[in-house]
């Protein structure tokens, strides 16, 4: 190395040799990898839309909005209303269970619990969220349903009530943790102001914290509705596959997700209308959950309190 070599030249030489190509290749590589998630979304949309359109071409629109669903009959009929009905009922029951319990758990954790209690309870709630849904399905079918049968003798072995309740238990952690985050982001100064004026803890919770966190609370509920609509294994196992159009929650109903699982694990021959009906139901499911998520985002932006 002669005396005139400068540090700048060394660096320049290092960069301009082999590293230069790698420097150019790596961003491209990362971009390709990152675009796979976008490709996945496009793939989902394309599969659903292409195969669903074959279904819509084969089945008249009047039949789709009927209450007759018998895909495996010799003369099959594809009314979607029984599936929407089943999804609606399981979701409503789940939210009726999850919203009050999840919200009061969030209020307790953010307002009343001491640090010690919170550190103990939060991980336990998280454990509930980590249990696979198939385990909840087993629990609903082999434990909750028999107990409910003792209380309601007319309850069927497969019914909507039991998976609805268990699904509610499953989404409690979601509502609790999202709402608690929203409640904790209400500025301390507002709560202290209310305490300073002589408010009790309950009054601060109901009149300061909840109004301040309402956007987060509402969007957590909407997100959990979306989760309940898309939930599959609990309803497939415990609510059965009856395709009747009924409003009786003690009886079996099939949800949209349950239909997809039942039909694919059966013998859905590729190319039949029944096979394409899977994708039509899937498309509807996709639209419902996407709509709910966009609604949740809209709520959390629209009603956000700026502090």
């Amino acid at each position: 190395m002669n005396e005139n070599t400068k540090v700048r030249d060394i660096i320049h030489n290092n960069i301009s040799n082999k590293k230069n190509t790698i420097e150019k290749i790596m961003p491209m590589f990362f971009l390709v990898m990152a675009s796979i998630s976008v490709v996945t979304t496009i793939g989902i949309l394309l599969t659903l839309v292409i195969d669903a359109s074959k279904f819509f071409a084969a089945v008249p629109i009047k039949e789709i909005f009927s209450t007759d669903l018998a895909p495996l009959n010799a003369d099959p009929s594809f009314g979607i209303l029984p599936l929407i009905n089943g999804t609606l009922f399981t979701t409503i029951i789940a939210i009726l269970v999850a919203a009050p319990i999840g919200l009061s758990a969030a209020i307790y954790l953010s307002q009343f619990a001491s640090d010690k209690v919170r550190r103990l309870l939060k991980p336990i709630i998280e454990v509930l969220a980590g249990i696979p849904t198939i385990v909840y399905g087993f629990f609903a079918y082999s434990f909750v349903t028999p107990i409910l049968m003792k209380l309601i003798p007319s309850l069927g072995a497969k019914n909507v009530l039991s998976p609805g309740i268990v699904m509610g238990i499953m989404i409690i952690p979601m509502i609790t943790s999202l709402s608690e985050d929203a409640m904790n982001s209400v500025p301390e100064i507002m709560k202290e102001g209310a305490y300073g004026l002589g408010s009790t803890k309950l009054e601060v919770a109901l009149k300061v914290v909840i109004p301040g966190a309402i956007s987060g609370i509402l969007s957590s509920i909407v997100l959990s509705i979306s989760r309940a609509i898309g939930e599959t294994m609990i309803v497939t196992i415990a609510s059965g596959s009856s395709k009747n159009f009924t409003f009786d929650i003690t009886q079996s109903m099939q949800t949209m997700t349950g239909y997809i699982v039942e039909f694919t694990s059966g013998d859905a021959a590729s190319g039949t209308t029944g096979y394409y009906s899977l994708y039509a139901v899937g498309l509807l499911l996709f639209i419902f959950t996407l709509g709910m998520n966009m609604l949740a985002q809209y709520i959390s932006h629209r009603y956000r309190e700026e502090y």
Partner: protein
Amino acid sequence: MSYESQFIKENKSESKFEFISNYKIEIDKKRTDRRIKLSNTSRYIFSLSLIFAVSVLLILLYRIGVDSIGWLNVDFLTGRLSIFPEKAGIYSVIIGSVYLTLIVIPVTLILGVSTAVYLEEYAPSGIINRVINTNISNLASVPSVIFGLLGLTVFSRMLNLGSSILAGGLTLSLLVLPIIVVSSQEAIRAVPGFLKEASLAMGATKWTTIRKVILPVAIPGILTGSILSISRAIGETAPLVVLGIPTLILTTPSTIFDDFTALPIQIYYWTLDTVLTAEYANLAAATIVVLLVVLFVMNSAAIIIRNKFQKKF
């Protein structure tokens, strides 16, 4: 100060004091008591919700534990599947789940970490970043059964992989991709800027900085996220069922192109078939115990890694 004015001042202050105390006694006493009482009672009502959640968890674990007693033993773990409950074992089921994990780990790690690196280091703002980020948050909320339909069309039918381990593993990888991307993004974002700037100031190139500074510091966070996403993949049932995994497979898979069955699927089929054979409920419970133990170990590992190896700056 004259005597008179002193008297007036005392008198005034006294009357003022009286006024306040009278006001308190007459108007506030009852109402305040009631408000405090209400607040204290509500505390217990709110805590009931948590007691409910915790007791459901305990009942669930207890119930599954009781059901699996006598069925969960070494023979069950090492035996082959059988239609006879007394002979059934889940060796091939465990192997199926292990194979699935072996596909999910590399695929999600490469895809997820690369996406996160791109978003955080190469395109921290702008349209590409916004598109990919929005896309990932939407993808995270797509029901898992729809990923099953995607896998059925693309991997099973178009690529002709059938219901093989590879098809299942790829489907699950796409399903858990958002989890690992988001947690890797957080881990990379948490790397202090001065480390990166110091490295660049020393003449290191961007890729060298990422490889030798950012990733090593972010690795505990990335690992935590990837363990969590893999544990999600292990417990996921619906997409695999949609792929059309056969109900009873007696052979143990040996390559990734073989048909297979995994822990959650076996639980599903046994639960469905309890109508035919009541003992299948015990087999399902025993398999659930195995699944929950695996998930518990993985999640504990994730928490330990997060607490122990995460560097504080």
